[in-house]
Structures are given as structure tokens and as C-alpha cells.
């Protein structure tokens, strides 16, 4: 066990997997000498060289498209999108190609690809360095989507993604990179894709969330515990395929649910989670299904008071949880 930052856990996962399997390689903008604009590939270029830690031209459709070709050949590419905001030029390659290769070839060809992309705001990045693109790709069958909240999950999910036989979108929250540290095993392990995780058990209300907001929920839960309100915090970890059983079990346990995410509310992952609950547990609910999400604006502005207004935080989450508990 070692205490690592979320960022180091991501880097270590790539390092370990590249040492284990020579088919694994990283490509993206500035991933080489610079080690990535956030430092997630620092040191990898020195260890593995130009070919396996490859600086690419500034062209996301090519980064993903070339990675798809290499994956079909049998490589295990990790394609880094510098910011998830800049992943959209690659949408066609990801949704029309990566997601459909196994299906359209009737299982003859496969695309074991990982696309890593930093998401989220609160970093004074303005409209285009702060977005959460989950809802664009969510609901595309053929893709898997994961979003770790802790260093343990970050490493375990990335290793699982690299070893997965299908394309996986790996969204990492910028704000967690250096802010979140935690224990990470030294030995080889994975966090299985498709399994949510109860980050805090509780009896009164259930919060279902993922990514940065997991931490807001946990902080809020500690505060509320002082007033005897016991919150269960379920970290989805995998957005696609959703862990239906874990969601239903977590809701059954308390009968009250708050769905929480930074991505804007309308059409977000939370809508599907709410729909699943409404389909299955109507009569187990003691309160309406509540959602606390980003505002429905194109993206968060950079001006400090506006970013603060947009971003969720422990206080806003606590308030919503309290409201639900009091319902």
C-alpha cells in the first residue's frame, strides 16, 4: 500500500500495464517529453521512448481513428484527449467506429481501445476546459464508460479498461488530480468495470453519484451524521453499463434518493438512473427522486463568481441531502 494522488494512480496504471504488455502504448498531444499538460504521462516517455509514448499531431479524430486501427490489429492503445472538451472532433470515430466494430463485423473484429479524457470544472478553465461530456457518449451501446473518484479506483479501473476487450472511455476529473489522495495497493489489481461501490453505508437517505461529487457527498454526509442523519453514498464508478442491482439495492435500503452530478441536469446520466428507479422501485420510495446537477447552460463561465455559482460543492450537496432527509 502507498499513499498516492489520483493523478499518480493514473500514471502508475499506465506504467505498470506498459511494463506488463508491450502492446500497450499511449498516444496524444504533448504526452511525450512534456508528460501531458496535467502530468499524467510524466516519466513514461523517458522509460518507454518515442514510439510507445507518442506525441501526435493536433488532430483528435486521427488520434482516436489511428488508435482504433491499431486496436483492431491487436495493440492496446491508450488515446489521450487533452481535455474532454476537445474530444468532440473524435465523436464520429468513437461512436460510429469504435462502438460498432464488434457488432457490425458479427464478432470478427474487435476494438480494445482506451480513450482517456480529463473532465470537469472548478479550475478556472472557462467554457471549454471545464465540461462534462458524459451525456454525449452515454447511451451509445458498444462503449463502456468509467469515472473514478479515488486513487484506488483510478488505478484499478484504468488497468481494467486497458485489459478490456471493448472500447472504454475513461473520464478523469481534473479537480481530483492533486486534491484527492488515497491508499493504492502495490500489487496488481483491477476494479471491475460495471460495479458500483458503496463509499459510505447509511440508512436514512441514498446519494447516487460519481467523480468529484462523490467527495462532496462524503463531506456532506459527515456533517449530517452529526445531526443523526445517516447517508448511503453510492459511487457509480462505471456509467456504462450501469450497475442496476447496486442502484436498486442502495435505494431500497433508505427509500429516499438524491442523484448528483456535475454534468448539466437535462439528459444527464442521472436521468437514466432516475428512470431505472422509477421503473423498478416506485413503491419503495418515501420521497420523489431528487436530482442535483449542473445548471442547463452551455458550460461554466470562467469569471470566479460565475464558476462558483455553477459548481457544486459540499455545502450545496449537504443542503439538498438535508432537504431530502427532512422530506
Amino acid at each position, binding site marked *: 500500500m502507498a499513499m498516492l494522488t489520483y493523478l499518480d494512480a493514473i500514471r502508475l496504471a499506465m506504467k505498470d500495464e506498459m511494463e506488463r504488455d508491450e502492446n500497450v502504448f499511449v498516444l496524444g498531444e504533448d504526452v511525450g517529453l512534456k508528460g501531458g499538460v496535467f502530468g499524467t504521462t510524466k516519466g513514461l516517455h523517458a522509460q518507454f521512448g518515442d514510439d510507445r509514448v507518442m506525441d501526435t*499531431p493536433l488532430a483528435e479524430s*486521427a488520434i482516436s481513428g489511428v488508435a482504433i*486501427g491499431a486496436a483492431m*490489429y*491487436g495493440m492496446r492503445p491508450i488515446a489521450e484527449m487533452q481535455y474532454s472538451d476537445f474530444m468532440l472532433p473524435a465523436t464520429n470515430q468513437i461512436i460510429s*467506429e469504435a462502438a460498432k466494430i464488434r457488432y*457490425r463485423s*458479427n464478432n470478427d473484429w474487435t476494438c480494445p481501445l482506451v480513450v482517456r479524457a480529463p473532465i470537469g470544472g472548478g479550475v478556472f478553465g472557462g467554457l471549454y476546459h471545464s465540461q462534462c461530456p458524459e451525456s454525449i457518449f452515454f447511451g451509445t451501446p458498444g462503449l463502456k464508460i468509467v469515472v473514478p473518484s479515488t486513487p484506488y479506483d483510478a488505478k484499478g479501473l484504468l488497468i481494467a479498461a486497458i485489459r478490456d476487450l471493448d472500447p472504454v472511455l475513461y473520464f478523469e476529473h481534473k479537480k481530483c488530480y492533486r486534491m484527492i489522495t488515497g491508499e493504492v495497493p502495490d500489487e496488481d489489481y483491477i476494479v471491475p468495470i460495471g460495479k458500483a461501490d458503496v463509499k459510505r453505508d447509511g440508512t436514512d437517505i441514498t446519494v447516487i453519484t460519481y467523480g468529484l461529487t462523490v467527495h462532496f457527498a462524503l463531506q456532506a454526509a459527515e456533517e449530517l451524521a452529526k445531526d443523526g442523519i445517516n447517508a448511503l453514498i453510492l459511487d457509480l464508478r462505471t456509467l456504462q453499463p450501469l450497475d442496476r442491482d447496486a442502484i436498486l439495492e442502495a435505494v431500497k435500503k433508505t427509500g429516499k434518493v438524491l442523484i448528483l452530478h456535475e454534468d448539466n441536469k437535462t439528459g444527464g446520466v442521472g436521468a437514466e438512473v432516475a428512470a431505472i428507479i422509477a421503473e423498478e422501485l416506485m413503491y419503495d420510495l418515501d420521497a420523489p427522486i431528487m436530482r442535483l446537477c449542473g445548471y442547463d447552460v452551455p458550460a461554466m463561465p470562467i469569471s470566479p463568481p460565475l464558476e462558483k455559482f455553477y459548481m457544486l460543492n459540499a455545502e450545496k450537496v449537504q443542503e439538498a441531502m438535508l432537504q431530502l432527509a427532512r422530506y
Partner: protein
Amino acid sequence: MVIAQLTKHRQLGLSDEQVIEMYRTMMLARKFDERGLILQRAGKINFHVSGIGQEAAQVGAAFALEKQKDYFLPYYRDYALVLSIGMTVKDLMLAIFAKAEDPNSGGRQMPGHFGYKKHHIVTGSSPVTTQVPHAVGFALAAKLKKQNFVSFVTFGDGSSNQGDFHEGCNFAGVHKLPVIFMCENNQYAISVPYHKQVGCARIADRAIGYGFPGVAVDGNDVLEMYRVVKEARERAIRGEGPTLIEAIVYRVSPHSTSDDDMAYRTKEEVDMHIQNDGIPKFRAYLEEIGVWNEQKEAAMQQAIAQEIKEATEYGDKAPFPTPESTLRHVYAEEGDI
């Protein structure tokens, strides 16, 4: 051996048997294609997209490459190409009838959406030009794994205006990857003629913008196509990087069986181009050098007719996939690797 010295194909290192096989393959593709059109008109299949007029370019290229070693990323008109590298007419018939046994997609995709891992034919989709970066990815794998294969990708003139063409070519140019880009310029993108589609006179010239050679070739000249692609392959294997080849052809059929081309071009224009058909030209060459004649032609035609007849019957009779199979292979299943 005096003659031999003089024949172009021998100079190119092609045996008489090979050129005859090239001729047969062009004819086989043409006959399959014509049958496809008939089957569609007869209502036996819903849709056919034709490669008539592009067979010489495809066969010339295919024979310059190495089957089961190089990787092929064809586009929807490449019947002659895939027939040259391992696909059979039966396979193609299973595809146009959308039957379970279709090796391309198990009847999931439209005709002309090729894929067959056994033959290194990479699965393709409908959105044009997405295969170009994929081909670059295969070439990158060749470099990373130190394998001496090349990847070969085709696309149309209109498709060369997609961003993926530019991004893929530049990536390959920067890293000098062993990939051959072949544009089958048939002068139209559905109804849009070349001059409303492409800003420059020759698509081959776009290679200048990526730092590798671009060559425009008469796509009706099968031996010239062979020569140019062979050279491109040798360059690629020597580590000298990509080549862009523009095969100048003409789309003789309407865009597809859903298209009425008389809305945007004249019969005269089409007829004029039919004169340049590469198949009779090549037959004339083979007869001129004495390796082909009436009898051989008749025998071949009969064999082809038979092959297509059997394949058609097989494809027609073959079972459809089961409805529930719609739900399979979204993700790897237990036991998939």
C-alpha cells in the same frame, strides 16, 4: 523469349498466369456486379451499389500487394479488390442477401461493407473516410511491432474532402508510416461532379501537403496501376513512408440502385466513358501478346457464369440470422478473446 522481353507485364515481373488471373478477376467482379443489379431490379435484394468501371484499378492494385500479409481497408465499390484477396462470390452473395453465413457482417451490414479478418480485410462502415485513420493505425502497428506489412486503403474523390483524410494523411506523413492511400476518383460523389467537389485539379497533388509522393494513374490501365502500387509498397517497406495514389476512373453506373443519374448527367457522357472500360482493353492486350483467345474467353465466361449461378442460389437459399441474434456481440461475451 523475344516476345516476352517486350510484354509489359513480364517487364513488371508478372507471369502470364498472373495476368490471366487478373483478367479473370476483373471479369468475375463485373459479372457479380451485373448480377447484383439484376437481383435488385428483380426485387430479390433491396439494394446494390456498383463498382463497374473501377475493376482494373482495384485488381491492378490488389495484385501488387501481399494477400493475408498486408491489411486492406476497402470501400463499398471494391468488389474486384476483395475478390482478388480471398473473398469469394459466394461470400459476396451471402452479404447482399443479408444471410447469417455472410462473413462480412452476418447479414448485419449493407452490401459493400466488407470485412473478413481471415483475409486481413478490415471491417468498414458507411460514414465515408473513417477507414483512412484506421489504415494509418495498422501502419503504425507495423512500425511499433516491426512487421513488414503495409496497409492499403481506398476511398472516393468526394470522400477525400473529409477531415479524416487530412488528419490521417498528415499523421502518416509525420511518422513515415507504411500505408498506401488510394483514391478511386470516379468523377462523381452521388450527383456532385468533381469540379463542385474538389478545389484542386488533381487529388494526387494533396500529397504535397503531407510530405509524401502523390501519383495520378489511369485507373483503366490495370498494368500501370500494378506498377504504381508495387512501387508504393516497396517505398513503404523500405521505410520511406506513405504514397497517395489517385486512380482516375469513371462511375459508369448510377451511384446506387436508389439513384437516378440522368437527373444530373447525360447518357452521352456515360457512353463516352464506357469506351475507356479497362476490361476489354486488357483482353485485347492479352490476345495481342498471344496468351488469350476466343476459346479461352468462352470457357472462362462459362465458368464464371456457373460460379455466379451457384453462389446466387446458395446465397438465396441460405438461412437468415435468428431475430434474437440482433442482441448479440454488443460487447465481448463469455469466452470471446
